[in-house]
């Protein structure tokens, strides 16, 4: 593999987001800096009888507002629609032409890739549940297949079924931008978009592309998705107070708040960014990935995989724990994650662990599942830009066993040059990336 001989520095040159705190980067960041919660009662469907009746939804978003030619994306799923809107924002900032077969931006499309951590699209609920209703033989307790098939064929739409495929978000972004380079979609649960950004960085570093549109998109806020999370008892049930339900690292935390959205970062080789004269927002310097190989249901008790991923990212970045100014935690507000993540940070950072601010953006944004890591990574870039570390809101009753500096309740002004972003997913998926303030000269 000859292209692998290359070694390029990788920088970020554009960002876009659609999330519960707002539908562009400025709105989202304003929400983070004021410590606002994006959670509220579920409105996408009637969830009032579910154990959990709230979530963190994208509001007031219409993809058609972002596009001159909405036709190729008209039938897309909720998550893909978020991805396309976020990609338009990010491409605009990075000077990448969209919605045209004749781009004038000088970018070789065969060197432009897409890599998203993206989830499957929402189900066509009426048709999906309807076909089971139609085909269920209550007496014999089994599905009558021919009846089910006939109902499904008569009531489902080809487009809506196709748009549920998890690769459709990258397909839409590729068509939006004309990308002919490597295009991949991954789905490693809650760690997916951090993995996508990490692998996209590696693609550019080793010559596979000059620019990769990277990030994530996901919405699991539908009757089947929320059923799954409710059954796992992973969600907070603080139905009387959605805004204070996501409370990572507190003694009273009782689960995560499910969110939705998309976040896109334009990753680019330094050489390409310089050639194009495009402003550089930050540099990506490290990526580490590991698996727990422990249990399908639980994280490894000692955070073995998390530790390995953090250490691998530091080695990749040629940095030590002493170089890290801020840790953007996975911080889900579940009993297990917050305890094990804290333990893992202590294992890696040793005596410095309590000195490094480690906050959870999920306290405000909710948990965007596949899109979470990339959305939080955007806040890391802004933390470097503005010298402000986001707070962990709702942290009023700290868990006495969890004693790191979680930046409780108020964002902190401080110089930030190097940030570690952590993401962990069901099944023991661990992904960590490190980004750095961009400075000229060798890194």
């Amino acid at each position, binding site marked *: *593999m*000859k*292209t*692998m*001989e290359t070694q390029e520095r990788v920088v970020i040159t554009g960002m876009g987001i659609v999330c519960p705190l707002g539908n562009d980067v400025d709105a989202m960041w304003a929400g983070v800096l004021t410590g606002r919660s994006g959670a509220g009662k579920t409105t996408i469907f*009637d*969830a009032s*009888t579910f154990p959990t009746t709230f979530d963190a939804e994208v509001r007031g978003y219409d993809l058609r507002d972002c596009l001159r030619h909405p036709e190729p994306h008209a039938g897309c799923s909720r998550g893909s629609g978020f991805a396309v809107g976020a990609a338009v924002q990010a491409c605009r900032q990075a000077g990448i032409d969209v919605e045209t077969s004749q781009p004038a931006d000088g970018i070789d499309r*065969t060197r432009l890739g897409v890599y998203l951590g*993206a989830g499957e699209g929402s189900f066509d609920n*009426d048709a999906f*549940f*309807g076909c*089971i209703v139609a085909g269920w033989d209550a007496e014999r*307790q089994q*599905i009558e*297949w*021919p*009846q089910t*098939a*006939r109902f*499904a*064929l008569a009531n489902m739409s080809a487009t809506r*079924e*196709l748009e549920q*495929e998890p*690769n*459709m978000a990258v*397909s839409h972004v*590729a*068509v939006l931008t*004309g990308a*002919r*380079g*490597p*295009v*991949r979609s*991954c*789905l*490693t*649960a809650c760690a997916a978009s951090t993995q996508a950004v990490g*692998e996209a960085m590696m*693609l550019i570093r080793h010559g*596979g592309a000059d620019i990769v549109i990277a990030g994530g998109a996901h919405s699991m806020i539908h*009757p*089947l998705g929320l*059923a*799954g*999370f*409710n*059954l796992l008892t992973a969600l907070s049930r603080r139905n009387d107070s959605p805004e204070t339900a996501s409370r990572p690292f507190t003694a009273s935390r009782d689960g995560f708040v499910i969110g939705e959205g998309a976040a896109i970062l334009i990753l680019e080789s330094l050489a390409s960014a310089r050639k194009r004269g495009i402003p550089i927002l930050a540099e990506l310097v490290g990526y580490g*990935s*590991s*698996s*727990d*190989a422990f*249990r*399908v249901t639980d994280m490894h008790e000692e955070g073995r995989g998390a530790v390995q991923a953090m250490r691998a990212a530091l080695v990749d970045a040629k940095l030590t724990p002493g170089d890290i100014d801020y840790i953007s935690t996975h911080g889900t507000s579940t009993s297990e994650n917050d305890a094990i993540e804290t333990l893992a940070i202590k294992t890696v950072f040793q005596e410095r662990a309590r000195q490094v601010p480690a906050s959870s953006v999920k306290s405000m944004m909710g948990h965007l599942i596949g899109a979470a890591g990339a959305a939080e990574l955007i806040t890391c870039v802004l933390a470097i830009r503005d010298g402000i570390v986001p707070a962990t809101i709702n942290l009023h009753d700290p868990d006495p066993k969890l004693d790191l500096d979680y930046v409780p309740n108020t964002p902190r002004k401080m110089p930030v040059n190097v940030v570690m972003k952590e993401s962990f997913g069901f*099944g*023991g998926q661990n992904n960590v990336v490190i980004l750095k303030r961009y400075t000229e000269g060798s890194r």
Partner: protein
Amino acid sequence: MTAARVVITGLGTVGPLGLTVEEMWAGLSTGRCGIARIKAIDPTGFACQIAGEVPPYRVQDHVPKAIRKAVKLMCRDIELAVVAAREAVASSGLVTKGIDPERVNVDPTRVAITLGAGMISCDLAELGPAIAVSTTDGRFDVRKWGKDGLSHITPLWLLKYLPNMLACHIGIIHDIQGPSNTITCAEAAAALAIGEAAQILARGGADIALAGAAEAKVNLMMLVRQELLKRAVTNSNDAPERACRPFDADAAGLVVGEGAGILVLETLDHARARGTKVLGEIAGIGQSHSLHPEYKSLEPDGQGIRVAVEKAMADAGIGPNDLDLIVPHGTGVLHDDLAEARGLDAALGSAIHRIPAWPTKSMMGTAGAAAGALDIIAAVRAMECGIVPPARNFTKPATGCHLNISTQRREGRLRNVLCCSYTPGGQTAAVVLTAVQGDATS
């Protein structure tokens, strides 16, 4: 930086032609067809009632006793992957915790896993009782679903259907602690996953990687989708073995298949240090995209295929004249087959008339995410044996297809093999496999 060379040292598969690589190869090399009337469900509601199904197996036999209760959390996609992974690891000579915990000879932190997976269809029968109590006047009622329906579903239900659980279960069984990823790019997923795993090894991210894909496609929702998209062949229910005809003038649609294909990839240095047999080298990876704005078929001119193939050849440092076999994606959907053929034409020029092309889906159907892995494993075996098996269901080329497809078995050394993959939704990939001199029979 010096990139490590990446080689293949183990293979494992389950598919319509059998439960092992040898069974699959015995079928493929003699042109046997694994497509028949659907057994998994009563298919009479569908216009297409045939598929390539995996023969019966017992997943318990492939999971160590200590963690056997994990099979309760395995949907069929996971099961297929677990079975194929065991054969792959065993055939490589590596001893993982899942093979024999007393004799482990690998460093688990230096093993990666990258698999392709599809959108996993949940078992409708499993949801039946929950939905039966969630109706009002014969229609689904989401309020009853939230209040009463959920209690009829097992609490860990969601975990059975997350695409990354294929890799996670295999990771737990074989103690794989290095990087783990799951590529969800439909029929292109396997080639993209194998490409990514090879790149992880080349850059030093691991010494060994399990790579491939699995997908169980023969279920109601997948059959509904293929029929709604008008991709499934509907004129051959009474002659399943003649139904799927890639690149043939009479191609009338695809046949759904299922299966798993897993490769053990290793850096050449690591493989040589332990003196294991090398089956071939991953020499080049190329990826691109087809930009058809309807996401249902390739662009007619096959540009996405052309770019991927050109990149793969450049990455391998070879030209069209160095290729001795093409394993095209060819599903039997005529317009996609022609688009792929045009893309290959553009990338290979006049060499397309010389290089044998051997489509496999006439025998196995399109096994979703696993399709590319079955093809790459087939290509490795062809390279090892030095034969191009006879093409099945090919009588007259479709107009505009210049691929050199033959129903005659051909023999000779295969230096480089090109495998193509794409999904009609857009992603394309090409992989160049190279025979490793001196190692193939050592």
